[in-house]
């Protein structure tokens, strides 16, 4: 258990956490402002990744691809809001779950139809492929550090957007009293579309950035979506601050658990068994964390609406 491994895995955990934050912030905003549970958020993640991969492949520029990915996710998000989601705001959660589950099926199979079943390849641009040496002689990929940087920058930008701008003021007002801001002359329908598209764009960005690290394939958004659910349940649904904290917590606990639990069991078990027990326990770790937190705080760490 060297210090190098610990630093490396901590950074990996933070990197996973920042990407989860990009997903979770959109989900939690949409729930906080519109009261909508959106399973199709993982589809925007996938749309962003596919658009980025396709545009990067044809233009050769990762940055143009990234911009295209975010734009595509935002546009698809706005379109979905206009056609489907808008009919669901006053429906029970069951209807929202089912309609957005239907959207997942449509998006996943549609994407498979257009792009085929085999994954697309997207790699980080060459100027981001190197390693940096951190204190303690840890060599760490530049690209992952950039992801952490992007996540932090987005977190700050979101904070400024929500606390300093007129749009942010409306979002906060929408969270506390929907009817009232409508009565005050704010175009709620437009506000909802903008918030939904913003969330979709952030999910698309996360999909594109992570897609360059792993692979771009159908269904890539689903595991992330469920992790993002755990994040916002832990953080308190509707709270951006909770999403940030929950994302970092989940990212770090999950990553460290996967590395250290098997090592821990090896200290008193035969290696092959230890790996089995350790990795199965590690896979359950964040859900156990969630259960423990909910046992004490049923509304999460930073419940927004009460």
């Amino acid at each position, binding site marked *: 258990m060297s210090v190098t491994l610990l630093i490396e895995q901590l950074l990996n955990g933070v990197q996973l956490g920042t990407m989860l934050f990009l997903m979770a912030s959109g989900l939690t905003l949409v729930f906080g402002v519109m009261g909508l549970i959106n399973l199709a958020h993982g589809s925007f993640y996938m749309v962003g990744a596919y658009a980025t991969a396709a545009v990067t492949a044809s233009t050769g520029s990762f940055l143009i691809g990234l911009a295209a990915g975010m734009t595509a996710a935002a546009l698809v998000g706005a379109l979905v809001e206009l056609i489907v989601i808008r009919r669901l705001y006053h429906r029970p959660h069951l209807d929202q779950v089912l309609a957005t589950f239907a959207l997942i*099926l*449509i998006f996943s199979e549609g994407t498979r139809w257009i792009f085929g079943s085999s994954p697309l390849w997207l790699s980080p641009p060459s100027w981001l492929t190197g390693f940096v040496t951190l204190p303690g002689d840890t060599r760490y990929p530049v690209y992952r550090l950039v992801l952490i940087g992007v996540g932090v920058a987005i977190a700050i930008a979101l904070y400024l957007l929500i606390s300093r701008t007129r749009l942010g003021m409306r979002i906060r007002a929408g969270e506390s009293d929907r009817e009232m801001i409508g009565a005050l002359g704010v175009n709620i329908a437009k506000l909802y579309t903008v918030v939904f598209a913003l969330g979709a764009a952030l999910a698309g960005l996360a999909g594109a950035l992570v897609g360059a690290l792993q692979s771009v394939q159908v269904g890539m958004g689903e595991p992330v979506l469920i992790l993002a659910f755990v994040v916002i349940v832990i953080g308190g649904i509707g709270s951006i601050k909770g999403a940030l904290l929950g994302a970092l917590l989940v990212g770090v606990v999950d990553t460290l658990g996967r590395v250290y639990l098997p090592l821990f069991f090896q200290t008193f078990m035969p290696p092959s068994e230890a790996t089995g027990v350790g990795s199965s326990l590690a896979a359950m770790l964040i859900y156990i964390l969630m259960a423990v937190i909910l046992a004490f705080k049923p509304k999460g760490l930073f419940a927004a609406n009460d």
Partner: protein
Amino acid sequence: MINTTPLSKNAAPATHAESHFDRKGLVQMILLGLLLLLPVAAYFLGHTYYVNLASRVTIIAMAAVGLNLAIGYGGMVSFGHAAYFGLGGYVAGISAYHAFDMTPFMSWPFSVPGSDSLLVVWLAAVVLCALLALAIGAISLRTTGVYFIMITLAFAQMIYYFANSWPTYGGQDGLPIYIRNTLPQVGNNLLDSSDALTYFLICFTGLMLAMALTSRLMKSRFGAALTMARLNDVRLATAGVSPYPIRLVAFVISAAITGLAGALYADLNGFVSPSMLSWHFSGELMVIVILGGVGRLYGPLAGAVLFVMMETFLGGITEYWQLFLGLVLLGVVLFAKHGVMGWLAGSERNE
């Protein structure tokens, strides 16, 4: 979650109820009759494939009957019922595995051997699923609304990932059941579970029992309390009945029914894998309940028939059949709230 639906909504005029009885009863009779007669006919014409298909419909309907008790009657939108379906399946699989290997399932603190008896497998599946649901429900039911949905989903994922990474029983490759678990032999060879029609009739009996149990429960005092817990839990509490234990018991029964269906499913396919535990299956079960008509006794059956037919026939035409399933589902959710049974049999009295 305070729902202000007035009680009087339930007390529709009697004439209104009677005018629907015949049509509803007729639709239900036809549905059951077809489900029972078509496989029997297929069996004697030598089409075992269709008998097994009918078993599949029946088992999935039974799993959905369980979920319908939670969602439709109890108002608990569980997004994690695949956990119980899968656990039931793994009980059948693991039990058969140890019986086949003649190794004990566990030897400490007391010895538990494997078993290839269906009765033992069913009992174990029901008990274990009930215990799991008791633990998950006890935590999840402390929350409501969207939290409940996400938490039940998260717990099911936990079990999914556990099954995926636990190597003893096949991990993500799953576990085959080489010989279908058996029923005790009574006299001659009447109950041979490996016979397709016999197994269908076993599943059909299971489905009928599950539906009878649901119907019986909902007519009892317990059912009245559960309905009230869904419609207005404050009013129920004011009447001196605490909603939490009522919901928890309903949740546990619901999970036990779904778990028993899972055990039947594993024996039907001769195979159990983590995909039985996946959140996609939880979603599909919800889809079936909604397609059929939520909170209706025959809704899950109608939904399962429709779902498996779409899967079989659309799936035979295009490999992208789930795209069309998505479109149909979207249409039903947005425009046809009462599902197939609502469309065929008219609305329920309390709608």
